[in-house]
């Protein structure tokens, strides 16, 4: 379903969504984050990309799984803690972040469903904002199966076509949101459709970066397990993990107990983000470490996204947001690495 929403009506529509917790990009010092808003009169014109991707809504960086305590008889008692039942609308989601959540669903929903992720995902309404102009210099979504006007993982996509948004309503959830403010939505005309299409074409021509034939990298990487590129490229890695923490698809986590009191026993079991880039991530309690060095850990990050996930799900586990390229303090660049491994073929 396609609609038109005047920019001046955005706030009125959002005003009808009072049953939801609404999140929108807000500026924190020099960067953008999704924060809860009580009203939303406009999506900011200078908005680029949030720092922490949408995954934080479905997989928070710290989440209590259950509480435990000694009951009156002295034995322990476990109390499940599920995410709050609250429907959430996030506005201004870029295509890369929405696709990130869609890819995470393959891992968290398809086999042995993760009840925490599932509940948060089911309560999440994604109102996307297409990318024209591109939000960042390091965007490369177009070469990894996405695009500046990608709709995957969204319920609604808004595209700025001047004084109004071209509105693509993509799912029943999206229809529900539109119905709540139906009086603000109009039918698009041919000119609106052409405006949207022209902007999408222009946006597609704006990319500085691409992974050349990204879909063929799995076949190349398959032969590069022992290649020296992992050592040379990881040499300057600081093991900070920012490439994975801010990745829309990285999802590794730790599970740990937080103890409030040892006697009587009282505490919480929590899950927190973790990263394959930390040395102790894979270290056995014996001290043996299957991925003992930076090169094997960089290899894991890239192989997981461009080979292992492709073997299992037939898709690349990278949405081209460019954060790992932009945020790495020492300039380790997945695009550059993957474009160079071409020449290693054979």
């Amino acid at each position, binding site marked *: 379903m396609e609609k038109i929403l005047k920019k001046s009506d955005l706030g009125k529509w959002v005003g009808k969504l009072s049953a939801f917790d609404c999140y929108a990009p807000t500026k924190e010092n020099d960067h953008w984050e999704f924060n809860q808003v009580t009203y939303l009169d406009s999506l900011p014109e200078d908005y680029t990309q949030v720092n922490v991707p949408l995954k934080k809504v479905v997989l928070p960086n710290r989440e209590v799984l259950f509480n435990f305590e000694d009951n009156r008889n002295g034995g*322990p008692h*476990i109390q499940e803690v599920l995410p709050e039942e609250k429907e959430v609308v996030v506005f201004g989601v870029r295509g890369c972040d929405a696709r990130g959540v869609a890819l995470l669903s393959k891992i968290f929903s398809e086999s042995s469903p993760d009840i925490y992720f599932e509940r948060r995902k089911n309560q999440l309404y994604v109102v996307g904002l297409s990318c024209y102009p591109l939000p960042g210099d390091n965007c490369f979504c177009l070469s990894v199966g996405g695009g500046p006007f990608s709709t995957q993982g969204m319920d609604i996509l808004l595209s700025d076509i001047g004084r109004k948004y071209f509105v693509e309503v993509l799912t029943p959830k999206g229809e529900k949101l539109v119905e709540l403010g139906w009086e603000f939505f109009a039918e698009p005309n041919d000119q609106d459709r052409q405006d949207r299409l022209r902007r999408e074409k222009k946006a597609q021509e704006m990319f500085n970066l691409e992974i050349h034939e990204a879909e063929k990298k799995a076949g190349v990487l398959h032969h590069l397990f022992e290649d020296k590129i992992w050592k040379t490229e990881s040499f300057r890695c600081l093991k900070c993990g920012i490439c994975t923490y801010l990745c829309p698809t990285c999802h590794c986590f730790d599970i740990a107990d937080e103890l409030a009191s040892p006697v009587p026993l009282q505490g919480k079991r929590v899950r927190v983000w973790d990263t394959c880039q930390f040395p102790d991530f894979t270290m056995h309690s014996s001290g043996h470490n299957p991925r003992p060095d930076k090169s094997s850990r960089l290899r*894991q990050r890239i192989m997981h996204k461009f*080979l*292992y996930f492709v073997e299992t799900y037939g898709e690349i586990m990278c949405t081209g947001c460019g954060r790992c390229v932009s945020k790495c303090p020492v300039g380790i660049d997945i695009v550059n690495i993957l474009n160079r491994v071409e020449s290693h073929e054979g």
Partner: protein
Amino acid sequence: MKDNPYLPQLARIVTIKEEVGGSRPIKSFRMQLLNGHRFDFKCGQCAMISVLGKGESMISISSSPLERDYLQFSVLKMGRVTSALHEMEQGSIVGLRGPYGNGFPLEQWTGKNLIFIGGGIGLAPIWSVLQTALRQQNDYGQLSLFYGARTSSDLVFKDELRKLKDTLPVYLSIDVEEPGWTEFVGFVPQNVADKKPSPDNAIAITCGPPIMIKFVIKTIQELGFQDNQIYTTVENKMKCGIGKCGRCNIGPHYICKDGPVYSWAKLKTLPQEY
């Protein structure tokens, strides 16, 4: 509760047996679920044991699925959780979730000779298979066991091993000479090379330290065992048990759900990150 894969069931430790003392202690814990339910599993599968307040550890189940009265875990004291478990007393309550992993394909081994080759605490996962095969001996051919440890006191299940000798060939070994030790002295692969088990109609099941597994596989390959006649288990650090947390990932596999049991034919195609 069942929908939540992270929620443990409470279990009571009904007996604790000290298998090995000294600086590398091993204890066997027998447990029962508090709700009286059975914990169904297959040989070679693991369970996540919670010591609430300390965390969780993935431990292989060393009892047979045919044993209806208890689950047994034989645990080497090593990290935070296993150390806390070693401090616990009979009657203490732990959490259990699982079972996890694929298990051994016993249904494919009917009529075959099973050769068990274990080292140290690595006897625990294959003990479950051995106990099961012993109870269904008519389904299998000849059973035999090779088992070794650093010293005679490091051997687990000492009493059971003594009794087992009446039923099947048991070839024990210790790494270095000790007064009074009449059996093989040397590493497990050397003992296997010395006894030369036949690969005819046989399956070799090996578990132990990574270095031992490596040389056991080399040794039995030299004896003529084919890759699909060799089974082992892979252990990696695990947190979730359901292929999500990323820790036990090797290539496209998650050891917690696609393993821990592998034929060498399969394992040799995966990256050596274990």
